[in-house]
């Protein structure tokens, strides 16, 4: 360990220190939500600045090659910090009326984010697992944050049981991979696998490791048929937490896929490509079909997030299915990263509106809550329409470009992956039905007699502004669009150079 090592991971250390500072502040001034919230917002902005600052220097491996700070790490770190920021801005409006403390919420959230940041630059199988656990353990706590609420507890227990079960499966897969290659360093794992004879079948031990890793990761990203925990965990959790859970752990799990499958297991990608293609196809289709029948908006968005997992996996499939060294390989990873950014903002935005409506205690997330919203609170209805259109993939929103990149990459990759492109487009058309159903409720139904005005705080407005601006700008303002793409391209390049060079 040297000073440069510490400088390179300073964003990560900063976030952990910030979480502890909030705990100290809560010990000294208990029940002062404004202090912890203010500290978090200011701290996250500083943390993002620090990440960008560290990204200026050259990419380097630190801690004897266990961690790397390269453009991909910086890309993901900035995204994670932005997700945390929006979540913290949206949360008070929902938590305060229910008497839930902010300080513990923000501290727990920051610990989870530090886990995600550990994953994003991890170059070692064990550090990867450590980051994963640091990410999901606070997630279980957040899911059960409304501890007097039976649904919240139910969702948290289901999330915890299946989450720890899948972590065990994943760890077993890591153990077999380690047993086969004899190293936990990702670079050495890749080098060891590259020497295998690709023409003959893989050794059963390695195949089993691959199967266990795939299953474990599929649980974490909630891919069908490993998605059963998702709807209950998402519906039961406090709404701002649901927003975070549907975005943070999902993007982090894709970061894990990039580090593990795209970097370490790239030499044997012919063996896991068919699985990714099949999983992507059924995840998109089943997620969308089940979402069609939901009457609860949170549950509908939960199934829609499963469908979006499928779309992101199309990007992964495009990388995996493309010939080694081809342009489509890069396009696939670029699409995956771009989709993650667009998805993060539009999905957080949609959940932020649901949180805003649930500001008063006792307001449910049933679709009837949205009836006549266009008349009761026009701006909320307009923003919700924007997010839903973006989730559908209608131009000129961020969601459209995200889908376009992923689908184009799949077409470029050719073969079976181009079939995925067709499935993705058909699914996007089917998804329009249930997204627009909410819009119909908002603008074409009369508000219920009992409806009371929608109240929003300043922070909620700021959170909505960030998500809305990003959703529009990524789609509509060329410099922003190309900026995100450029950043994603540089980040994707890192993976390709390394897998090509061994």
């Amino acid at each position: 360990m040297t000073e440069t090592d510490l400088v390179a991971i300073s964003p990560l250390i900063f976030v952990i220190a910030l979480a502890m500072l909030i705990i100290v502040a809560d010990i000294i001034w208990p029940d002062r939500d404004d202090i912890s919230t203010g500290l978090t917002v200011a701290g996250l902005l500083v943390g993002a600045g620090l990440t960008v600052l560290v990204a200026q220097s050259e990419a380097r491996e630190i801690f004897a090659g266990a961690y790397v700070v390269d453009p991909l790490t910086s890309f993901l770190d900035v995204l994670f910090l932005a997700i945390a920021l929006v979540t913290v801005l949206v949360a008070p409006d929902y938590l305060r009326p229910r008497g839930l403390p902010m300080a513990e919420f923000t501290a727990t959230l920051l610990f989870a984010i530090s886990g995600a940041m550990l994953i994003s630059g991890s170059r070692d199988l064990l550090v990867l697992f450590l980051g994963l656990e640091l990410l999901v353990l606070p997630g279980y706590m957040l899911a059960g944050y409304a501890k007097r609420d039976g649904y919240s507890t139910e969702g948290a227990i289901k999330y915890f049981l299946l989450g720890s079960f899948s972590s065990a499966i994943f760890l077993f897969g890591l153990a077999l991979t380690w047993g086969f290659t004899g190293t936990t360093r990702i670079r050495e794992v890749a080098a060891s696998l590259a020497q295998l004879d690709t023409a003959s079948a893989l050794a059963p031990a390695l195949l089993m490791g691959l199967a266990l890793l795939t299953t474990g990761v599929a649980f974490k990203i909630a891919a069908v048929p490993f998605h059963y925990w998702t709807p209950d965990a998402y519906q039961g959790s406090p709404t701002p937490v649901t927003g975070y859970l549907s975005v943070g752990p999902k993007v982090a799990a894709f970061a894990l896929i990039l580090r593990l499958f795209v970097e370490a297991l790239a030499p044997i990608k012919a063996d896991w490509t068919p699985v990714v293609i099949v999983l992507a196809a059924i995840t998109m289709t089943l997620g969308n079909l089940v979402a069609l029948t939901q009457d609860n908006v949170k549950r509908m968005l939960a199934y829609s997030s499963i469908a979006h997992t499928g779309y992101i996996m199309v990007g992964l499939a495009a990388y995996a299915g493309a010939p080694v060294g081809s342009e489509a390989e890069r396009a696939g990873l670029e699409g995956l990263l771009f989709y993650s950014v667009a998805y993060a903002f539009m999905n957080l935005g949609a959940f932020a509106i649901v949180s805003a409506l649930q500001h008063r205690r006792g307001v449910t997330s049933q679709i009837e809550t949205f009836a006549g919203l266009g008349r009761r609170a026009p701006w909320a209805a307009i923003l919700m329409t924007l997010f839903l259109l973006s989730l559908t993939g209608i131009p000129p929103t961020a969601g459209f470009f995200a889908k376009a990149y992923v689908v184009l990459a799949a077409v470029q990759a050719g073969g079976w992956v181009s079939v995925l492109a067709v499935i993705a487009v058909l699914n996007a058309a089917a998804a329009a039905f249930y997204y627009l159903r909410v819009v119909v409720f908002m603008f074409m139904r009369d508000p219920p007699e009992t409806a009371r005005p929608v109240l929003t705080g300043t922070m909620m407005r700021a959170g909505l502004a960030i998500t809305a601006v990003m959703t529009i700008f990524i789609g509509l303002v060329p410099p922003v669009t190309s900026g995100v793409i450029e950043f994603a391209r540089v980040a994707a390049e890192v993976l390709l150079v390394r897998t090509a060079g061994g």
Partner: protein
Amino acid sequence: MTGLWYILGFAFAGISFVFLTIGVSWLLSHRHKGDRHKGLPYESGIDTYGDTWGRFGLSFYIYALLFVAFDIEVIFIYLWALVFRDVLVGGLVSMAIFVGILLLGLGYAWRKGVLTWR
């Protein structure tokens, strides 16, 4: 191909271990129908009473968690003490940070009233 047999053999051994242990304990256990005391968990102790499915206070759980945190800490401190001559100031600072983080957790739990018995 031999690798596959290893896996099958391993799976077979793993599954049969379960039945083996249950079977052996069934064979070895003394089943005296007539003598009630022979069947008790503690044959020569005082008579047991109550239900096995009794409920525990949740407070024990939090104490157990705090205990585990400090129990693990001790493992690190032993190793640190062994090599202290080599690490000196840097080691002292690292350990101070480590213990400080744990103490912060304890202080937080204390402040939140976790240590008050309810």
